[in-house]
């Protein structure tokens, strides 16, 4: 490695009781692209957020060129020569492209208290041209541009002032191939100018190809740094997960017949502007997958089955003829639903684990309408422990739990309800590998007990790995159906999605 530019010393950060970053120490060299990888929740984003002043540091310190770097916000970080392109949208709507690029540094264009907009636009246009993004108009409102262009604008914003350290946090997922090429080109240019890039990505191929060194974080702790030229994807995966990923991650059975007994029949279900004329049957003991692009309407299908959609038409009928048209009816007849929007819909985060687990079963737990606290505690404890929710007790508020644990509480409440039809929308979204594996195992177990599961997911691998049948949706209608098959590939499904 070359000359050290940035040192992290014993950096720690907690959110409530969750330790997001634990005692991380590492060094970054001048003139390198340094990859930072790890599972979701491993602390990568939190780590760089502290570097850039987005989060405060609990303890430990950063040394930039041997001097302690302690910044309170991004503008201050920029002044010290550290900038970041964030994972989410980093540009502000309602401002022009130029205003976004020079956000927090408008002083350059201010004379006698008046901002010289023309000069600002001219300078922005010059920069955009220099970066090769000439198709973007500096004076236009940023809202005219779609996500990808806005990311390109962020690249300019984060790098035009020649910072010494540029953090690129999970940006490539938002970019098309062209956009990625642009980003790689500028990453290389910045490195060749002797600056340092910290590059966070989930795409290991990309990380290996475009970085010089790769550091791995796991559960908030620093694990190791390897040279990219020596690294293999498998080795990195092993470092990230801490154990060999068994191929038994998903189900391994193929060709086992599914019962022909219909438990749920969905006929001509439509929700205005979301889904149109959806019909399918769900069988006993089946895991039925729904896939498609994010906006294809599949998420609304889950809500519609649960009686949670507004203005739904068509029918959702159980085997015994019961029509499901409201949430209480759905729950009474043993339908469970875990929403993609976990914090707002699946679970009441500012309430206790106990209350969250008992709520769907509250009518059964009452004896002559009277609830006994002891019984409620026992019930909540039993199911929280059954699927090993990490908690200090059932009185703990859900808001303090990690994403994976929140999802476990969601599952605990429905398993406690002994639901027969379980609709899981994006059950593993933002969840680390270990809990993911737990959830897959749980699904297999439920299937074995004869429960039926509908899994809606944006992860094709997961659909292929877990489902007996996969329905692909496009623009609010069903566009294809696949039976479980070892030879089924991602491409087959994608072809029906787009």
């Amino acid at each position, binding site marked *: 490695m070359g000359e050290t530019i940035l040192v992290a010393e014993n950096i720690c950060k907690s959110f409530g009781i969750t330790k997001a970053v634990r005692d991380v120490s590492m060094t970054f060299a001048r003139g390198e692209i340094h990859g930072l990888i790890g599972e979701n929740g491993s602390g990568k984003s939190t780590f760089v957020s502290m570097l850039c002043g987005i989060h405060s540091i*609990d*303890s430990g310190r950063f040394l930039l060129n041997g001097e302690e770097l302690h910044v309170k916000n991004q503008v201050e970080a920029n002044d010290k020569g550290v900038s970041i392109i964030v994972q989410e949208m980093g540009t502000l709507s309602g401002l022009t492209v130029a205003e976004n690029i020079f956000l927090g540094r408008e002083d350059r264009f201010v004379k006698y208290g008046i901002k010289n907009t023309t000069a600002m636009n001219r300078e922005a246009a010059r920069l955009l041209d220099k970066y090769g993004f000439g198709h973007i108009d500096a004076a236009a409102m940023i809202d005219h541009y779609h996500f990808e262009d806005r990311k390109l604008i962020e690249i300019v914003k984060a790098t035009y002032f020649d910072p010494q350290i540029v953090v690129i946090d999970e940006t490539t997922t938002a970019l098309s191939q062209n956009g990625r090429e642009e980003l790689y080109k500028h990453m290389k240019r910045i490195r060749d100018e002797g600056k340092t890039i910290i590059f966070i990505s989930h795409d290991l191929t990309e990380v290996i190809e475009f970085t010089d060194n790769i550091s791995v974080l796991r559960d908030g702790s620093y694990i190791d740094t390897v040279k990219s030229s020596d690294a293999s994807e498998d080795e990195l995966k092993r470092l990230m997960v801490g154990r060999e990923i068994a191929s038994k991650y998903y189900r391994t059975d193929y060709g086992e017949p599914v019962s022909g007994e219909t438990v749920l029949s969905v006929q001509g279900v439509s929700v205005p502007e979301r889904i149109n004329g959806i019909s399918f049957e769900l069988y006993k003991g089946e895991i039925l997958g729904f896939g498609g692009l994010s906006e294809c309407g599949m998420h609304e299908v889950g809500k519609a089955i*649960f009686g*949670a959609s507004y203005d739904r038409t068509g029918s959702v009928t159980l085997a015994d003829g019961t029509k499901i048209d409201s*949430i*209480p009816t*759905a*729950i*009474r007849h043993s339908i469970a*639903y875990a*929403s993609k929007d976990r914090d*707002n*819909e*699946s*679970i*009441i*985060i*500012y*309430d*206790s684990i106990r*209350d*969250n687990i*008992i*709520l*769907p079963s*509250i*009518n059964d737990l*009452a004896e002559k*309408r*009277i*609830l*006994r606290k002891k019984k409620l505690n026992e019930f909540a404890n039993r199911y929280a422990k059954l699927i090993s929710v990490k908690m200090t007790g059932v009185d703990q*508020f859900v*808001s303090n739990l990690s994403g994976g644990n929140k999802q476990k509480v969601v599952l605990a*409440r429905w398993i406690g309800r002994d639901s027969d039809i379980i609709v899981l929308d994006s059950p593993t979204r933002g969840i680390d590998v270990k809990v993911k594996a737990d959830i897959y195992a749980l699904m297999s177990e439920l299937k074995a007990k004869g429960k039926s599961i509908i899994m809606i997911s944006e992860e094709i691998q997961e659909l292929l790995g877990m489902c007996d049948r996969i329905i692909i949706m496009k623009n609010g209608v069903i566009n294809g159906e696949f039976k479980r098959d070892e030879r089924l590939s991602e491409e087959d499904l994608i072809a029906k999605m787009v």
Partner: protein
Amino acid sequence: MTEKTIVEEKITLMKVKHILSNSRLRDLLPLFGLIIIVAVFAVMTDMSIIEARSINLILSQVYVLMIASTGVFLVMTIGGLDFSQGSILGISSIVISYLSFYSIPLAVIAGILAGALIGACNGFFHVKFKIPSFIVTICTMYLFRGLCAYMTTDAPVAAKITITELNLTWLKISLTVAVLLIVYFIFTFTKLGTCLKAIGAGETAARFSGIRTNLTKFLIFTAAGAITGFAAFLNVIKVGSITATAGNQLETMILIALVLGGLPISGGARVRFSNIVIGTLIYCVLNNGLVMLGYDTAIQQFIKGTIFLIVVALTIDKKSLHIIK
């Protein structure tokens, strides 16, 4: 070495914050507040505030406030606010006074129904048109205050003269305790309490948990109105005739009392039933203490406002503020 001490200090500070925010201590704070405020006034008034005469006076102000607070407590648990309580008390008092000439039980029932009707009106507009509850209830407050004023334009509405014979301490205490016990039982031992807290903590998720949120909200506003309608009976037996100012400012008194009692202003899972009792006691002691110390009304309001602001600022949970409906 110094750095280590700083870190250690930070950790201790975090621990203290943690204890304050999570443990039972937080639940006990209002009780300490009550004890301290009684102690302070006892010293400042040369113990006269804890003489039987003063206690009687304080109690006489507690009943109506405590009963009406019970209803608003339910509304605030779901994250709502209700500013129409004063006007409900006014209207119900007028109804009870009119009907007291025919039959007292009938008058009480009619008073409760009148309150329930106004509460239902609040609930209907809040739920059906999705108007935040504080806006709806400010509107109904003006509406029914106006009606109150209209009905008392020529002369105060007098109740049957003998009704004040019912102004007996034991009767008022037992009615207040009865209301508290009934609501306490329902709130603690039926699913209603859990459901109300869930709605306050996160309405969408509560709906997805199978709670009929709209119906529950409507019923709770109705219940709050009905409970204050009942409180109007105690008001009538105390004052005997109703003027335009009946129930004036009751809504703010309730709000201040509940918040002083430790009720989070955004409701949710952290509410405690004891908030009602302790809060109204604190409020009444504070009120009487200030009177006994001889402050004039303007100064009293100034002090109460200041205390309210300080308590809210100290206890507010920024994270759950968006929940206020």
